[in-house]
């Protein structure tokens, strides 16, 4: 290559004609009866008893280092699916996603166990995200303090099932936000906890943004998109409807949703 200008944008995520298809077992005819299931097995169709949901249809875009990209669209338009595909968690049906390093979704909910104490969940969640034991030890106090779990007594040594839903959500966010990421994807994480905690988490996300190369944010809150993102992808029915600067896209989107 010829000499590279320092201010030339460096791509970090490239989606190339990406298609994602979910397969749902036993939902083809809508009849859940045993006879219907049997006849599905007997009839050798192309794919028996499987209904396909085409969640993302041919989306292409290039994201660059330093960008914060918002993903908007109505419910079920494929935003979360697209994020998972970028993270390499959902296999593509057709097309490809190229990424720089390993993009990660902000969220560890699935790794945590309600029957364990908050303390053990911090460790388990950190390990699940790929942190080392030393890193977790180092950040442990920071995570607990940030979550504010211990503000009302020693809750961190109690099982998570004893937490209120707000407390649990705060701890989850605190664990998830403890790790630095190259490409960071946030799925409506801003709306957890009380007002005080929301403020704190918005701040933390801004910090993460500074450290991360590229940030994707899924949100239904146009204000938080406007605050954090400089580019917006608008998905509708799995198709990329618009891609551009935040203001332009949001204006069109607000017109579309009749706001």
């Amino acid at each position, binding site marked *: 290559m010829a000499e590279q200008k320092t201010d030339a944008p460096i791509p970090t995520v490239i989606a190339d004609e990406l298609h994602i298809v979910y397969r749902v077992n036993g939902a083809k005819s809508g009849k859940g009866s045993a006879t219907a299931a049997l006849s599905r097995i007997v009839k050798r169709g192309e794919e028996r008893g499987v209904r396909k949901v085409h969640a993302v249809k041919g989306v292409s875009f290039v994201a*660059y280092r330093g960008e914060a990209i918002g993903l908007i669209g109505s419910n079920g338009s494929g935003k979360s699916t697209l994020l998972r595909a970028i993270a390499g968690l*959902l296999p593509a049906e057709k097309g490809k996603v190229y990424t*720089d390093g390993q993009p990660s979704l902000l969220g560890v909910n699935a790794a945590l166990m309600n029957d364990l104490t908050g303390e053990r969940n911090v460790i388990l969640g950190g390990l699940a995200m790929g942190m080392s034991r030393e890193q977790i030890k180092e950040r442990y106090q920071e995570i607990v303090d940030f979550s504010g779990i211990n503000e009302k007594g020693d809750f961190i040594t109690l099982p998570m099932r004893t937490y209120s839903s707000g407390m649990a959500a705060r701890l989850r966010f605190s664990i998830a936000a403890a790790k630095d990421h190259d490409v960071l994807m946030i799925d409506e994480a801003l709306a957890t906890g009380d007002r005080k905690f929301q403020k704190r988490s918005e701040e933390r996300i801004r910090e993460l943004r500074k450290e991360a190369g590229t940030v994707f944010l899924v949100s239904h809150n146009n204000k938080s998109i406007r605050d954090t993102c400089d580019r917006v992808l608008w998905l509708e029915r799995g198709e990329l409807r618009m891609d551009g600067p935040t203001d332009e896209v949001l204006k069109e989107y607000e017109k579309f949703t009749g706001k």
Partner: protein
Amino acid sequence: MSAPPSPDEGLAAAELAAKYGLTVSGARPSLFEYVRQLWDRRHFILAFSRAKLTAQYSQAKLGQLWQVATPLLNAAVYFFIFGLILNADKGMPKEVYIPFLVTGVFVFTFTQSSVMAGVRAISGNLGLVRALHFPRASLPISFALQQLQQLLFSMIVLFAVALIFGSYPALSWLLIVPVLLLQFFFNTGLAMIMARAGAKTPDLAQLMPFVMRTWMYASGVMFSIPIMLEDKPDWIATVLQWNPAAIYMDLMRFALIDGYGSSNLPDHVWAAALGWALLFVVGGFVYFWKAEERYGRG
């Protein structure tokens, strides 16, 4: 468009990716790289298995006591049915039969629960698979490890039973360690095979209990295979004795029980134990890795 004009204009996606060294997201790593990633996650694998173990009984009043009480009750039920009602102890004195039975139940349960956990390792943890990035083999390995820890609790009961019926600690008890290790490798391999199969066909979770029960009755958990099949053609007993579950059970009994000598073991039993373990752990690992990028599709 927001992307500023750049010298990259007009490059196809694949060329652009190649230019900046981007890689396909979610592509399957090489086998070597996969092993390395897995090794990096060893702390997670261990922590996950221990967390599952603890969470299991955390709602019960007696708590972790159930780790020991469950296998004990299990052994009692089998003894009641097979020892007292059905008299399956043919030709074995009581002080051999009871530890024989209890060993059989525990060792087989180890394999059985590893298989059952393996079937659901991926299909039952789709949330985790779809949210976080880690080598998926962590899950079946972690579940097999959980069962190993569970078995270690059962071993306490087993030692007590052996002592009560007159088998005292001897050098042969040291053999328990290699037997457990080999069986653990075998179970892990099997769990990985079941995990891939169960990820594609979740129905296996419904089917496996029946398969496992058949396997249990065919492996001589509560009776001695050669004695029970005396009047049948020889090859049937030979085949049954060589099946991995029977091999590991017999080795454990041989190590633990005074009155259970080497005459009860088939020829080349250690070679068979090692062979099954290697075949399954290597085969299962490669088989599981081959579908790595497809787990989580649902």
